[in-house]
């Protein structure tokens, strides 16, 4: 069944069609959200919220992109909003409790590459990180990323280039090995 027929059934109030749409896309949406948040419970919450919003807004879907790309756009929007809220909450907590520790460099044993990579990706600005995760980790094309994020493909390419440059810089010692 193609997207258009499935969408028509959902809009007509067919609850089974909603489940079919969910089954067809949930794995991809959850994977992307999890890659962004790294926490099962939050990924679950954001994925649920993305699908609920998608069903509510389905009448607005014009078919300019694939349904999967449209769903990813909603999921990314929900996830980034959730992460921003979380970040603000953490900053408030840090502001009250841990302000003196900010900026202090921690001295620790050299972690392995995976850990260093995770920290380096976590440290990227949201825009760079989103494009890097979508392209280099999850395999989305620049066209899909551009549609999902509402930017030009060239912007997506530029952000990926900068993200990679930052990661190379952060992991220069591994790159030289």
């Amino acid at each position, binding site marked *: 069944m193609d997207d258009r027929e499935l969408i028509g059934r959902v809009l007509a109030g067919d609850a089974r069609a909603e*489940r079919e749409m969910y089954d067809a896309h949930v*794995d991809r949406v*959850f994977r992307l959200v999890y890659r962004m948040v790294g926490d099962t419970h939050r990924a679950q919450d954001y994925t649920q919220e993305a699908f609920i919003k998608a*069903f509510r807004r389905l009448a607005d879907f014009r078919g300019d992109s694939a349904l999967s790309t449209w769903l990813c756009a909603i999921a990314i929007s929900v996830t980034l909003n959730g992460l921003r809220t979380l970040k603000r909450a953490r900053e408030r907590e840090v502001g009250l409790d841990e302000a003196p520790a900010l900026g202090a460099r921690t001295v620790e044993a050299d972690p392995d590459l995976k850990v260093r*990579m995770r920290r380096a990706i976590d440290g990227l600005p949201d825009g760079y990180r989103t494009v890097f995760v979508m392209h*280099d980790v999850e395999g989305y094309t620049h066209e899909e990323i551009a549609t999902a994020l509402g930017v030009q493909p060239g912007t997506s390419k530029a952000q*990926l280039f900068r993200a990679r440059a930052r*990661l190379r810089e952060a992991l220069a010692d591994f*790159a030289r090995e």
Partner: protein
Amino acid sequence: MDDDPLDEPLRAAAREYHRPPDPPREAMWREIERARRLDRARRPAPRRWLPWAAGAAAAAVLALGIGIGRLSQRGPQPPVAVGADWSASPRVNQTAYRLATVEHLGQSEAFLTLFRTSVRSGSQERLASATARELLATNRLLLDSPAAQDRRMRLLLQDLELVLAEIAQLTPDAPSGDRELIREGIERGGVLTRLRTVVPPGATPTRGAL
């Protein structure tokens, strides 16, 4: 710029970034389905809604009329004339709304008690959704009335609306898990306890069977 990838060791490490587990598909679907049921219950459906909304409105007006009538018989003041502007008397107005609200909450309390019992015993009551729709209509009228000006009452009516909307959406072939979820919602929100706090003893109505 795509032809400027990271070196393979870095690419391999990146692929390990937040490696996802299997998605909790059914758990997520239950929450989505629950939200969608509420969406459908809240969506206006004029053709089906209007007849029993009109009936509920008539019932609410009747309850108000009874309240006003009772009040007008007390004390030395002359009886309220038919067609008089009763809304000009805030005290009478408030009392009538209070009476109508207590009546509605009493019926809802009896209904939810019976619904909870039927879920626990595993019996399938076909009339539950019909009664829930009827109560839902009255509930919405009360939410839009001065009865909802009291914050505590408004919150109770809002919580009651969610529960009634969920039951109204139940179909005879709905899985038992759906009923159980609604029952859990009633317990979690303390809806029955709050209803019993508001409804005075002895005000339990005769109408309330599933």
